[in-house]
């Protein structure tokens, strides 16, 4: 029985009152690849950041080669030969590959020798690298190569890769995997974070599953199947008792056909996405983080330029069909298509933290009125109405929004957007970070809108909520629609599988 290369015992980490990791236990041996599987926000990256010295655990022990160690900084992590390849590359853009590789080391400064050593490591594992090439001239996979060589250069023999395949093409992924297998044969311990099931099954020896920060368990890959892993990952269905009425209208309101979006880095974010949102129903959008949800909503709101496809809006007032791609964001808003978007930061797009509730109402109405002075009376009435109707907990309407709690911020934002009687309401992660009561209030608001005949598009991350709140659910995976399911009959596992389905599998099924 050999001593494990790294062992975690009862690791716990909290940020404020949010528990990111709770009693996590992991064991990785040398010559072994462990996958860490979990949904968004299940605490995978936080856990790895604790091993690599970015965060410090509140509780628990880390053992390297059987001895307890304290990792307070990335430097400590190097000393224990731990190397992390971050999801968002930690590279300096204006530096060359070689500069990045030697960054922060204490050895003698000799770029020539360093380049040679870097090239030697690259050759050993079958990488290609030009040490003099600047990072900003590199493709994503080249950058990743630099990251990997950077940690190997430091002599790492415990490697952590945070979603390394998220940005790679299938060919690049295959190449990376062959490199990882060679490292494994070389006796390195490798931890790979991913939510792509087929990668887990094809690459790893063991799988550890996290769910909402909690450690669910570790299984041998050879005993696991896609279904069993999905079950561990998404858990048993929890009943939430969200009211859901039958949709009583059925008119198509918004038809998205084959839209493509390529971001400024040349990465394809949306790939031939099509779906229809109907009046009087809630359409859910499910998918792991970064599957293109944000870009999709922004595209509908006219905020991101598409490279292909069309977005047809059935105007209920005129009965005409209009392509939103030809319209400015302002025109789209005037048509009644409203975006209430809440990205990672609490305040989101559309509220200004340092301004009070009334001023935030005016952000939508400042263009109205005839005189040169802004009209403050109506926004004030609206702010007071929202505070009263939605039970916003605030000292007054003149309190800066920043000082309100997350749930109240959310109510202000949603309240303002629904006050203009939209025909399409898009809400992204509207309950993120909210307590149960506030969440239900938001669900009720969305349901009311649905009953008023609004086409509601709800982007969520909690599958239980999606299944109970929505009427239909569109599943996105890596920018493609992998399925549209009826939320009343769909199973949680079914969604989980669709969310993690990859390009190749989809082609095989088609």
């Amino acid at each position: 029985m050999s001593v494990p290369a790294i062992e975690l015992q009862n690791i716990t980490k909290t940020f404020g009152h949010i528990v990111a990791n709770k009693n996590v236990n992991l064991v990785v041996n040398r010559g072994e690849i462990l996958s860490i599987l979990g949904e968004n926000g299940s605490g995978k990256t936080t856990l790895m950041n604790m091993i690599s010295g970015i965060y410090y655990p509140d509780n628990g022990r880390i053992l390297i080669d059987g001895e307890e160690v304290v990792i307070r900084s990335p430097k400590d992590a190097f000393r224990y030969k731990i190397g992390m390849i971050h999801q968002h590359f930690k590279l300096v853009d204006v530096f060359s590959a070689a500069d990045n590789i030697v960054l922060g080391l204490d050895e003698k400064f000799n770029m020539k020798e360093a380049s040679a050593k870097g090239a030697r490591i690259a050759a050993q594992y079958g990488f290609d690298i030009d040490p003099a090439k600047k990072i900003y001239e590199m493709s994503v996979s080249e950058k990743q190569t630099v990251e990997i060589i950077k940690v190997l250069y430091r002599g790492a023999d415990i490697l952590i890769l945070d979603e390394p395949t998220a940005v790679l093409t299938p060919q690049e992924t295959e190449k990376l995997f062959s490199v990882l297998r060679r490292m494994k044969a070389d006796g390195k311990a490798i931890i790979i974070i991913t939510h792509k099931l087929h990668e887990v099954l094809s690459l790893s020896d063991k799988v550890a599953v996290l769910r909402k920060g909690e450690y669910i368990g570790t299984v041998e890959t050879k005993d696991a199947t896609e279904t069993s892993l999905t079950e561990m990952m998404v858990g048993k269905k929890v009943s939430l008792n969200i009211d859901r009425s039958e949709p009583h209208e059925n008119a198509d309101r918004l038809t998205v056909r084959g839209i493509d979006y390529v971001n400024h880095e040349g990465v394809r974010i949306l790939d031939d996405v099509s779906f229809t949102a109907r009046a009087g129903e809630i359409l859910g959008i499910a998918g792991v983080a970064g599957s293109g949800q944000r870009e999709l909503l922004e595209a509908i709101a006219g905020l991101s330029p598409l490279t292909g496809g069309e977005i047809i809006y059935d105007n209920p007032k005129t009965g005409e069909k209009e392509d939103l791609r030809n319209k400015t964001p302002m025109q789209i808003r005037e048509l009644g298509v409203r975006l209430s978007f809440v990205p990672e930061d609490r305040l989101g797009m559309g509220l200004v933290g340092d301004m009070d509730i009334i001023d935030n109402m005016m952000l939508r109405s400042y263009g109205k009125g005839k005189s040169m002075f802004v009209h403050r009376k109506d926004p004030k009435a609206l702010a007071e109405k929202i505070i009263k109707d939605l039970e916003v907990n605030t000292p007054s309407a003149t309190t800066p929004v920043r000082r309100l709690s997350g749930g109240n911020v959310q109510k202000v934002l949603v309240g303002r957007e629904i006050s203009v009687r939209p025909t399409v309401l898009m809400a992204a992660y509207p309950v993120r970070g909210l307590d149960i009561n506030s969440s239900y209030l938001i669900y009720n608001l969305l349901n009311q809108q649905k009953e008023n005949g609004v086409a509601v598009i709800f982007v969520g991350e909690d599958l239980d909520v999606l299944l109970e709140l929505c009427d239909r659910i569109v599943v996105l995976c890596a920018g493609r629609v992998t399925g549209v399911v009826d939320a009343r009959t769909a199973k949680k596992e079914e969604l989980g599988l669709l969310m993690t389905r990859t390009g190749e599998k989809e082609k095989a099924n088609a």
Partner: protein
Amino acid sequence: MGALFVFLHRAIMQGIPLMLGSTGEILTEKSGHLNLGIPGIMYVGGISGVIGSFLYEQGVGPANINPALAVLIPLLCSLAGSLLMGLIYCFLTVTLRANQNVTGLALTTFGTGFGNFFGGSLIKLSGNDVPSITLTATSNVFRTTFPFANKLGPLGTLFFSYSFLAYAAVIIAILAAWVLGRTRIGLNLRAVGESPATADAAGINVNRYKYVATCVGSMIAGLGGLYYVFDYANGVWSNNAFGDRGWLAIALVIFCVWRPNISIFGSILFGGLFIVHNYIPNIDVSTQELIKMTPYLVTIIVLVATSMRKKRETQPPASLGLSYFREDR
């Protein structure tokens, strides 16, 4: 011909404070901190030297000063004054992560007020009729130059007639360029300014680099103020005579695209543009003021040109002006 040499000579004299100021600011900005307090820091560097020198000259009498002490006392006072300013800036922006622009501007206001307060007090103490302090004895020591400078004709004047601080300024600029471009410390410092998260993950102590770069930068900039008083102004301090040289130094940083070696020539060019109106015959005051504007105009042109070319190497450090906190999420 003679006039050209005189003009170049004066341009260099005018350029040295800018060279020191911009070299200091480049080091600071390379750590990701935009220190708009440089004008105040240079001012404090000047007045601190003046205070030291004034007390020493008054103490022993201007005739009896020891040349070594006459240089050393103002030099150390100046360094201490500007270091203190740098530390205030660091504590606020690095440790407390205050807004850099606001902090910098506050320091400039504070530094100018500090200088004028003590300048005014010393003028009162000295009981002068004119509103200035004259420290000729110390200035004479400061302005000691190569003995053979005058024997070599105009070329000798142009190259060898400066004080030690002027040569030090050039050496510091070259040294700064070498450190930034060729050493591990420079590589790490540039990484801190470009992407502190990357530097942190690579095991670099980000805050230490920020502190050291900013404080050393402030001390170098402070020497610019010292040079101005004891060399350029011949040891005469009068309030607000330093003018907008501090802002010119900051503009110069942009002009020389964050490279201290370019700042050597840039500062002389700026110095020349700043005084060229004196060498153009028959122009009125308003035209003179317009010509004094040209350094800023040139800076804007450089800014437009580099922004249009979008070459990554001529852009400011990517994290310039941003605070860094590791557990930010």
